[in-house]
């Protein structure tokens, strides 16, 4: 710790005082030892002080201090005292040792310091390079998302828009001549397609929103049965002729989540399941509390999803090509339209909730979409004991 501080900090004026103090302490020790140990041992104290002080001093300073130390040693401790009478020559060995040790150490430290400084510079450069690289990747991803969104707008939006335009222009041009039921049918088509466009727009916007770093979730404690009730009610309204089975036990743990987003997630899964279900097939929605997780599964009895597509369908605007062989070809083809963004949004919503989402095979055929949501320690509930039913 101390050594790293010494190494990292340049030997500025702020640290040089430690070197001076070391020398002063050494001289104090010399005086203390004077007369109790031999001159040779006293000289060793000087060597040690020179070595230690060099840690904080520059090579030049070390040399100066060492030379002064030898001269003062001669003056104060070598007989005859208080004179330079003893030839300095006799201290030559001591001087050489002191100078060698202290200069060597301070020189080595100076080198180490400059090495550390340049290493730091390089580290900063490397970090900058990494940042640049990451920014480039982010930009590429943003570009990719933009491209896929543009693809969506040009492809997925044009079909329902074309239908709306067709129906509405027909109404505009021939409203007087068309029979009443035909007018109602055209109007119905416009309402349905507008609803489809609305769902696609909601999903596309949500995906762009969730993909940005600044997404803010409106998290609250939510009851999963309320979220699923919302989804089930909407599904029954939109597909009154299809069988929808719900298995949502009472007493499920609360989730700390954004309810609007989770409703959207399960709306998409159920809408998909309804779309791929054969006539008379059942769509099943079930919730299961498993320890620290809540599993919510949406299954259909449709043709299923080939294994190699089970992960890919969650990518933006991936869709299973109708030319691809299906897991169970005997079920026949089903209309596939608008898969593009729905499942990608599901995955994005799951991700921001720390949940996972995956597709599995249903028995005997069909697909199970499973969402595993984390169950957090539950909040403290109000005291119920004092409440008696009246």
């Amino acid at each position, binding site marked *: 710790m101390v050594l790293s501080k010494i190494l990292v900090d340049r030997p500025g004026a702020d640290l040089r005082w430690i070197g001076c103090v070391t020398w002063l302490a050494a001289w104090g020790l010399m005086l203390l030892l004077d007369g109790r140990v031999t001159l040779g041992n006293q000289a060793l104290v000087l060597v040690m002080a020179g070595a230690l002080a060099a840690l904080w001093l520059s090579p030049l300073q070390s040399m100066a201090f060492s030379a002064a130390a030898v001269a003062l040693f001669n003056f104060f401790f070598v007989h005859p005292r208080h004179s330079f009478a003893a030839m300095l020559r006799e201290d030559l060995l001591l001087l050489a040792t002191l100078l060698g040790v202290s200069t060597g150490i301070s020189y080595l430290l100076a080198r180490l310091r400059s090495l550390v400084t340049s290493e730091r510079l390089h580290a900063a450069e490397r970090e900058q390079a990494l940042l640049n690289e990451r920014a480039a990747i982010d930009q590429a991803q943003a570009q990719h998302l933009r491209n896929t969104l543009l693809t969506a707008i040009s492809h997925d939006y044009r079909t329902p828009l074309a239908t709306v335009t067709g129906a509405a222009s027909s109404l505009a041009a021939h409203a007087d001549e068309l029979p009443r039921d035909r007018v109602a049918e055209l109007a119905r088509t416009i*309402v349905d397609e*507008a609803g489809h466009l*609305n769902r696609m727009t*909601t999903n596309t*916007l949500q995906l762009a*929103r969730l993909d940005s770093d600044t997404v803010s979730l*409106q998290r*609250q*404690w*939510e*009851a999963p*049965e*309320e*979220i*699923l*009730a*919302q989804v*089930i*009610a909407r599904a029954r309204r939109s597909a009154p002729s299809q069988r929808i089975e*719900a298995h*949502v036990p*009472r007493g499920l743990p*609360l989730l700390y989540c*954004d*309810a*609007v987003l*989770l*409703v959207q997630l399960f709306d998409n899964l159920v809408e998909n399941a309804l779309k791929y279900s054969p006539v008379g097939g059942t769509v099943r929605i079930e919730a299961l509390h498993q320890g620290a997780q809540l599993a919510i599964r949406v299954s259909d009895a449709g043709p299923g999803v080939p294994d190699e597509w089970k992960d890919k369908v969650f990518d933006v605007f991936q869709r299973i090509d109708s030319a691809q062989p299906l897991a169970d070809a005997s079920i026949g083809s089903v209309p596939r339209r608008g898969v593009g963004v729905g499942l990608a949004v599901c995955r994005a919503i799951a991700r921001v909730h720390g949940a996972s989402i995956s597709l599995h095979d249903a028995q005997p055929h069909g697909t199970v979409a499973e969402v595993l949501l984390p169950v957090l320690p*539950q*909040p403290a*509930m*109000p005291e*119920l004991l004092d*409440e*008696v*039913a*009246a």
Partner: protein
Amino acid sequence: MTLTVLLIEDDLALRATLARALELEGYRVQAADSRAAGEAVFRQPDDALPDLVLLDLGLPDGDGGDLIHWIRSRSGLPVLVTSARYDDAAKVALLDAGADDYLVKPFSISELLARIRVALRHRSRDGSAGLTEYRHGALEVDVSRRLVSLNGERVRLTPTEFKLLAQLVGQAGQVITHRQLLAEVWGPEHVGDTHYLRLYMAQLRAKLEPDPAEPRVLLTEPGVGYRLAEPLHSLTD
């Protein structure tokens, strides 16, 4: 008597479409394209004031919140807010500020008319005591006599459950935000404790709904609050 709707919407096409649809239903429509134009309507003599305000959240000259405070400081007129999808927080803030209900764009005309009918029904009752009687299918609630019955049989509720149900009955058919319910039932220090609501709504549904997993009466408005279904008087709904 013809009722007047003040329609504040900056989009010309949507304003024209809504105005025509409302006129078809027999309402008189005053249209305004900005907050300023909406406020100008309130400077008319009292007998020319509208009966209901339909307010768009995304006006060019203000977010509508100030306008609701402004309207609320002058009258108890019902205010319905229309908003785009991603204004959840703003929507809730407007409801807390005194708006009566909200509609998310795009909405159908039948939804809009239903909300207008409910809002006008609540306001036509003088004072803001709210409804005290409610009936939906086999469920009957009489708040003043503290009576709740299902299929003619009395249902026992705890005092808190009853308090919560009474709040919902008071504004039957309209959304009430989490914050409003928590403040009324548990007190202002509990406005953040949405988990209290989850627990008590589950208990109420267990007692009052034939299938609590698919409620017909005690409805959830995700991210906003709860809504008691519009009263239904026939037993075959």
